[in-house]
């Protein structure tokens, strides 16, 4: 008689997939980061980074650009999300699609097109165009989770606040914003994390004038400096890990934020 297949064995394909495509690469990054060309353990890759002024400067710039991009996306995205949820201002579901639509087009293509537009209008490529491109690429990732959370907030909370004497402005700051915090956190993570590691946008939109951390990693790997490149990638992972932990501390609300 055949033994019935236990339900837990159904997840085996996924375990294999995760092992090959997620866990193994992580182990490899770790292995390369902490070893020299001959596979011996060393911290030299890290000391090299912390002594290299250029790399450190690029690293600082990357973080700076990522923070700026996230801040601009939040400032632009929150009002948009709020307007989209407000039934008086937005009567059609099509508007939200219009904001999400760019996400359906490959980011590289959008970036290349943006670069072409700048060239056409004779705008010098630099930090301004870089930020423009980043905001353009990542804004939907900020809007959507915030929109999602705002939409799920029971309107009776706002009514209750108004009933207790809050002007619409106060209702917004004392009720709507605090209750949409999970969405804001999701948005920040979804914008900040990929911006730290991006390299294509800076390459196309600044003609490689501005190098970001992602660019450096890419260059090192291309130049066959696998161990150093892996160490840099490792550092970036740590940074992303820290941001995730920081934004994730009211974890029970996180699910509602909905990473799409």
């Amino acid at each position, binding site marked *: 008689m055949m033994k019935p297949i236990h339900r837990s064995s159904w997840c085996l394909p996924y375990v294999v997939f995760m092992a090959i495509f997620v866990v193994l690469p992580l182990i490899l990054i770790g292995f390369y980061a902490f070893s020299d060309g001959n596979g011996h353990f060393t911290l030299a890759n890290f000391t090299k980074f912390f002594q290299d002024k250029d790399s450190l400067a690029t690293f600082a710039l990357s973080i700076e650009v990522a923070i700026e991009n996230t801040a601009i996306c939040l400032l632009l995205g929150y009002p948009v999300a709020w307007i989209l949820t407000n039934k008086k201002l937005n009567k059609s579901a099509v508007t939200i699609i219009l904001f999400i639509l760019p996400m359906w087009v490959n980011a590289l293509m959008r970036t290349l097109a943006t670069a072409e537009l700048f060239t056409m209008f004779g705008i010098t490529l630099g930090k301004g165009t870089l930020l423009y491109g980043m905001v353009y690429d990542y804004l939907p990732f900020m809007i959507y989770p915030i929109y999602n959370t705002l939409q799920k907030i029971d309107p*009776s*909370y706002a*009514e*209750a606040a*108004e*009933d*207790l*004497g*809050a002007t619409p402005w106060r209702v917004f700051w004392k009720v709507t914003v605090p209750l949409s915090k999970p969405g804001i956190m999701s948005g920040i993570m979804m914008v900040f994390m990929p911006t730290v590691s991006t390299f294509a946008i800076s390459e196309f939109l600044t003609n490689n004038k501005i190098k970001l951390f992602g660019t450096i990693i890419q260059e090192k790997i291309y130049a066959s400096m696998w161990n150093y490149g892996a160490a840099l990638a490792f550092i970036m992972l740590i940074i992303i890990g820290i941001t995730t932990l920081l934004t994730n501390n009211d974890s029970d609300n996180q699910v509602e934020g909905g990473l799409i």
Partner: protein
Amino acid sequence: MANHIIDIQNLSKSFGGKKVLDNISFYVRQGEFVTLLGPSGCGKTTILRQIAGFISPDEGCILLDGNDIAQIPPYQRPLNTVFQRYALFPHLDVYDNIAFGLKLKKEPQEEIDKKVRKVLKLVSMSDYEDRDVESLSGGQQQRVAIARALVNQPKVLLLDEPLAALDLKMRKDMQIELKEMHEKLGITFIYVTHDQEEALTLSDTIVVLNEGKIQQIGTPADIYNEPQNSFVADFIGESNILNGRMICDRKVEFIGHEFNCVDEGFGDDVPVDVVIRPEDIYIMNQTEGAQFTAKVKSCTFKGVHYEMYVETENGFELQIQDYNAFAVGSTVGLVIKPQDIQVMKKERVCNTFDGTVVDDSHVCFLGEDFECRVPAGLQSGAEVKVQVPFDKIELLDYQEDGALAGEVHFLLYKGDHYHLEIKTDDDDRLWVDTNDIWDKGDLVGISIAADDIKVIA
């Protein structure tokens, strides 16, 4: 007018073309406990939300202390609401929820502390200040919601079905507490509920609503003892609603017998509705001295009393409540005292529709052409009145089998038949007497025989 804190005048409101409130007028006196009572969808919450300011009336006005408050936004109205699902802010603890309104008014911290503590004591929730609102039970959340509203010392407290989410025992306890709070604080309460028992227990005045119209305004005793129409009689408490005929002043005939009553002014030989509460029918074993006799059909113990259904010798079924049980199958004598007979004017005695003549054998009404006898001399296109007796409309199981499709909207048991209100797809109403059993919401086909349609020029 002097002590009317709230005056509602000719309020109307439509949502998407559907009228939810139709010319509502009533007033609330200072310190009064007024309940808006009605089935779901009757417009009671819409009235409350208009008083609170969340929606504005299409027509009519709301006066607070004699001043129209139409232009005052909700955050400036000296009223506070207890919401149906409490709407406690999940990101704030109990203290901050209650202090929300006081902080907005920028009251000094020690004043806020004092008030929050006092109101928490009032709702028996001291020591819960630091609790997360989501960790509280439904009853506790309810208390916090009441405290959050009361702490602002509103002129009027608006309560939107505040006890609907609680279980029966808790609801009863909270009813008593609410009543005590109302008496202690002297604040005017406007309370919305669909629970007639709750309304009778709590209120000074009840406003009964149905389909956006006021059915009756009165004290609980008035509403219970002297319902003004069959809707109120049926909605509030148990009742026997019967077709009757006013013979003359103080004399009414129903279930085939003549009774003395105390009602006057209906005119002679006028059809009326008669309401008799089940506890107002006196039941005894001997038939001597009884006004009429009946056979006991069923007898159920209900805790305090027995509920019995009896059938009179001429086939009317009556519901009776008594402390004593009577054996099923036995013949009993029954007495109804004059003051326990509530006579109501009939809202209608026949279906009457506006119609137009199509040809010499068809008339169009309710949006359909019906075959019928058209009186001679009427041209096609002439405006006529069409009458159809209640018992001449046939209801069919399948909508597509009828000339018209409709839905059973309201039903009354009249002792020996059912009186139904049917709403057609075009929102027209017609009334049907039938012996068949239908339920509210049943979809029916409507058919009318040609001979039963009376056309009046």
